[in-house]
């Protein structure tokens, strides 16, 4: 059974007194023990999607569609149910730890918060979280728990956030760019401990990242978001064997290589589009080298193609043409 189901999730946020759409349509499931990577453009709605799962959206937000946890509607939960859900079932690693960790309380106080609220004795809770700091590679955890957030480096604070999420032993982890502030060896350690939790406890994971290679290596599937839409959902193993959406192909073509220095990096043409700017057609059409009239006038639905889902009218026709080489050529014409 799936742990999480998002069914046609749509979110509007108030901007200057008017509601503005930031997520159009996201349908996605995560099974027990499964990891789904979420990649996509900055501003595409990755963080808002994760927040919707916790019902932690900005004040005044409206939500359409459904969020289900183990089959239960999260949208319909009353206060007590929602509180229990957040304290025991789902945890989130926020993108910007410094903005989410209270600067005037010690790291230890932050870490034990959820456990204590759940009824654990503080001393026990402290023992649990101190051990977890060790697991995420923080040396001398006994000292660290007595320090204040500003005394820790960016990557240490990010690992404090990871430890706080793991402390409640959640069934679902929403990890929003959990390793961007970590060097690659520390990142590797953290990924190993998340992997262990998946294998041993069946932890399910929504893993937001900009690192396509990391997502391919640690996730089962990769979901790609663009301007508030889920545009592609593929098995991770498929990433290098042929993606089906031109936006995903553009992302792959934009990565710098660790082994060769490019004279100039490829970037997808045009400016990023906000979700509310998307008209009747495909949100990516104005920047797509393969767009035709239909793409500009009719919005493609997400449909099943082989083992993937893709929202592109032309994915069958374009099959085999979306290599990074072709993408760069097509854009330079």
């Amino acid at each position, binding site marked *: 059974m799936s742990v999480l189901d998002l069914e046609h999730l749509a979110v509007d946020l108030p901007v200057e007194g008017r509601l503005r759409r930031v997520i159009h349509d996201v349908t996605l499931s995560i099974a027990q023990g499964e990891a789904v990577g979420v990649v996509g453009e900055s501003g595409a709605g990755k*963080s808002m999607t994760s927040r919707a799962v916790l019902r932690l959206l900005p004040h005044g937000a409206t939500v359409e569609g459904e969020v289900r946890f183990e089959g239960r509607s999260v949208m319909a939960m009353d206060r007590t149910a929602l509180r229990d859900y957040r304290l025991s079932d789902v945890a989130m690693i926020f993108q910007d730890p410094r903005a989410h960790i209270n600067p005037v309380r010690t790291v230890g106080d932050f870490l034990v918060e959820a456990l204590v609220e759940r009824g654990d004795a503080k001393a026990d809770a402290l023992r649990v979280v101190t051990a977890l700091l060790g697991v995420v590679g923080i040396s001398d955890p006994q000292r660290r728990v007595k320090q204040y957030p500003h005394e820790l480096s960016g990557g240490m604070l990010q690992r404090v956030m990871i430890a706080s999420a793991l402390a409640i032993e959640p069934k679902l982890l929403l990890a929003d*760019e959990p390793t961007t502030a970590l*060097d*690659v060896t520390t990142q*590797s350690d953290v990924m190993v401990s998340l992997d262990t939790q998946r294998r041993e406890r069946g932890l399910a994971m929504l893993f937001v990242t900009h690192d396509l290679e990391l997502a391919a290596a640690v996730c089962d599937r990769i979901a790609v978001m663009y301007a508030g839409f889920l545009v592609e959902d593929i098995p991770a193993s498929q990433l290098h064997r042929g993606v089906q959406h031109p936006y995903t192909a553009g*992302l792959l073509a*934009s990565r710098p290589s*660790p082994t060769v220095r490019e004279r100039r990096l490829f970037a997808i043409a045009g*400016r990023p589009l906000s979700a509310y700017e998307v008209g009747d057609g495909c949100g990516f059409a104005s920047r797509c080298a393969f767009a035709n009239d239909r793409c500009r006038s009719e919005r493609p639905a997400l449909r099943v193609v082989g083992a993937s889902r893709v929202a592109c009218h032309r994915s069958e026709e374009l099959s085999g043409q979306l290599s990074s080489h072709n993408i760069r050529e097509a854009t330079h014409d």
Partner: protein
Amino acid sequence: MTENVPALEVIGLRKEYRVRGAGSTTAVASSGSALLGHPSKRRAPTSLVAVDDVSFTVAQGRSLAVVGESGSGKTTVARMIVGLERPTGGQVVVGGRQRSWNQMGSRERRRRAREVQIVFQDPYSSLDPRMTIRACLDEVLRLHFDWPSERIDARIEELLDQVGLDRRQADGLPRSLSGGQRQRVAIARALASEPRVLICDEAVASLDVSIQAQVLNLLSDIREATGVSYLFISHDLAVVRQVSDDIVVMRRGQMVESGPTEQILTQPGDPYTQRLLAAIPRPGWHPTSSHDSGPEQTPSTESS
């Protein structure tokens, strides 16, 4: 500008922090910095050496990358260079002038701001939450340039366009932006004062690869056009390869290796650098724990 004066030079930089004592003081475990102090006296004041004897030079128009372990002192070095943190020892020389830590007037502060700008690792805390993005850029431009309003407005548009933000985002508050959008605001704000040295502390880590490519191309264009120098702190070695001429590798407060980017990334001498390169996610890669020493730690490399 004198041609052969380095844009930035740091000599023997050191930073110690006082730390609350009780825990173990023995401490050089898997990561983090060395603790000094007397292990037997539990209450004795202890200090943590966050940066230990770091020296490097960035010539005009060059780009130096600082990479290394989380907690190794990279941000602390950057904060000492911009004057947000007072070094325990060593010197910071910018454009041939040694930095002092005396009180300075607003004129001096302005001059310094045009010498060195920094884009912080966590942009949210460095943006004024009550100020729209446009107002924030406007403020920086008015502070540094004596331009008529039209010119200021035009420059704001140009900066927004360069980092890929649209008008509506510009009129919003930082809170209404996504993580990567805020990061781009921070980059635009740093570029606004046209500094001689730009320090980027993980400035592109939270951008998707396409926008990141755009920003990296922009930084390289600006360098070509103006001769600005970069100090680029990053965990992404592919990005480092793209933007830097030289690399400094840090671990536990110290420099473990430095040299030309191409050389360090193809023939790393230090075992830690080798482990870093081995841990870059790529096709066929699987995360392994550094605690059980992986195959990447080949014995032959220890001798060098």
